[in-house]
C-alpha cells in the first residue's frame, strides 16, 4: 500500500509534467496534435 508521502510525490511528478491530462487522454483514446485535443475520426 502506498504511503501518503509516496502518493503525494507521485502526484507531484504527474502534475508537474502535465501528465495527468495526457494519461487521461491516452486512456480514453484521445490525442493532441498541434495543441488540438482530438479523437479517432477527427483526422
Amino acid at each position, binding site marked *: 500500500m502506498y504511503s501518503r508521502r509516496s502518493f503525494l510525490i507521485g*502526484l507531484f511528478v504527474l*502534475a*508537474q*509534467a502535465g501528465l495527468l*491530462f495526457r494519461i487521461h*487522454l491516452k486512456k480514453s483514446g484521445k490525442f493532441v*496534435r498541434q*495543441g488540438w485535443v482530438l479523437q479517432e475520426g*477527427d*483526422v
Partner: protein
Amino acid sequence: MFVDFNLSVNSLPKSTDFCVVGSGPAGMTLALELERHGRSVVLLEGGGLEWSPESHELYRGDVIGDHYVALEFARARLLGGTSGHWGGWSYQLTDLAFKKKAGFEDAQWPIEKKDLDPFLPQARSVLDIGPPADEVVLDGEFGIKEFRISYSRVRFGQKYRERLASSQHITCVTNANLTGLKTDGRNVVAATVTNFMGQSGSVYAKYFVLAMGGIENSRMLLWCNHQANGHLVDSRAPLGRYWMEHPAYTVGHALVDLKIPKTEYFRPHLLLTFTEAVFRKLGILECSIALEEIPSSGTKGLLKDLICVAPKAGEWAASLAGKNIVCGTKLIIGWEQEPVWSNHVKLSETKRDRFGIPLVELHWKKTDRDRVTLEKALSQFNDFLMARNRGRLKLDDWVLGKGGYPASADDGVSYHHMGGTRMASTVEKGVVDQNCRVFGQDNLYVAGSSVFPSGGEANPTLAIVQLSLRLAEHLRNA
C-alpha cells in the same frame, strides 16, 4: 460626518460603541448597518477620500514564491477600499464551499451556507444587484452546469459618501492609519491612529473590528500582537497562515457549439462549473470554466487551423459555422486554491513603512493538488465536449509542457485575497471564531475575506458583505 485626520488631529470622538478600521466593502457595510440600528461608530480609513501616492505606497510588499502582481496595485487604499477598482462580479458561495471535502481537511468552514443565506437579499441591496438567472444543468451525466453572475457597479467610496457625510452616528476619519492596538490582556482598550504628518491619537470603543483587507488584516494583527508581546492573539492560532487566491489562467481556445450569452458590461461569455457530485468524484476543489467569445476573425482563424490539423473535425466545425452555431472562444479556468499552512502573510524583517511598521511579505505558491484541480477539470470538460460533439479545444503549450505556469502581467491572479485570519471552531485551526471574534480577545473582531477558511469558486465580495451583515447582527446583540 467626515473628519480629515491630517487637518484636525484633536477632533477624534472621545468614545464610541464601535471602532471599525477600514472602509472597504466589509467595513463600510458593517458601519452602515450598525448606524441603521442607532449605534455610534468611528470608521477609520487610512487613505483619503481620493487616491494619494503616500497612502498607495503603504501597500507595497514582497511576494515570495509564485508570480504575482505588485501588491500596491492589487488593492486600493482610499475611502471604499478596493471596491474603487473592482470588477463587480458577484456570486454566492456554494453549499460545497462550506462543507467538508475528503482529502482537504482544512478547506471547511465552521458555519454553513444557510447561516449566510438570511443576509443575501440585503447584501444584494448593498451591492445594487438582483439575483442572477438560475443555474442550468447542461449535461447531467458529465455534471456540467451553466451559472450566471450579477454585476455590481457600486464603488463604496462614491455610493455611500453622502450618507457618511450626513450621518449622525458615524464619524468617518480619513488619513487615520492604524498603528497600534492597546489591550489589557482580555479586551482591546484603544486603537492608535497616525496621520501622514506623524501625529497620533487614540480611539476608545467598546468593540473593535479590523476590516482592512485580505492581507492587511493579517499584517496589522501580526504587528499589533508583536507590540503587545503576544498578548493580543492566542499563541496557538495560525495567524497569517492559509492565505489563498483564486488562480485563474487562459489555457487555450475552443470552438464550441454552445450558446455564449451576452453580458451587461463584459464581452459575451459562458460560465460553467460542475455539480457537487462531480467535484467529489474527481476529488478536486471547486473551479469554474469561462468561455469568452472572441472576434469572428479569431473564430475563422481557429476553423482554418482545425481544418489543416484535423480535416474531419474541421469540416464538422465549418458546417456548424455556416449556420452561425459554432463560436470561437478563449478558454479560462479558475479554481479554488487548496488552503495550506505554508502560504502565509509575514512581517518583513528588513523593510518598514513610514510609520515604522514592517512591510508585508507574502509567501504564496500553488500546490501540486492545485495543478491536479486544473488538469482534472480540463479533462472532464473536454470529455463532455467530445462525447456530445459540442466542440474541440486547442490548448496553449504550457498546459501540456513542463514549464509550469505562465508568469507575466496578471497571469494566474484574480485579485482575491483570502485567509490569514481564518474562521474555525478551535483556536488551533483558526484566528477567529464562528462570530469572527479574535481568539484571545473578548471585543476584537475581523471582517472581510481574511476570515475565509476556504475560497470556493465565487468572487468573494458578495460573501464579504453577507458576513459583515451577519457580524453587525451579532454585535448588536452582544
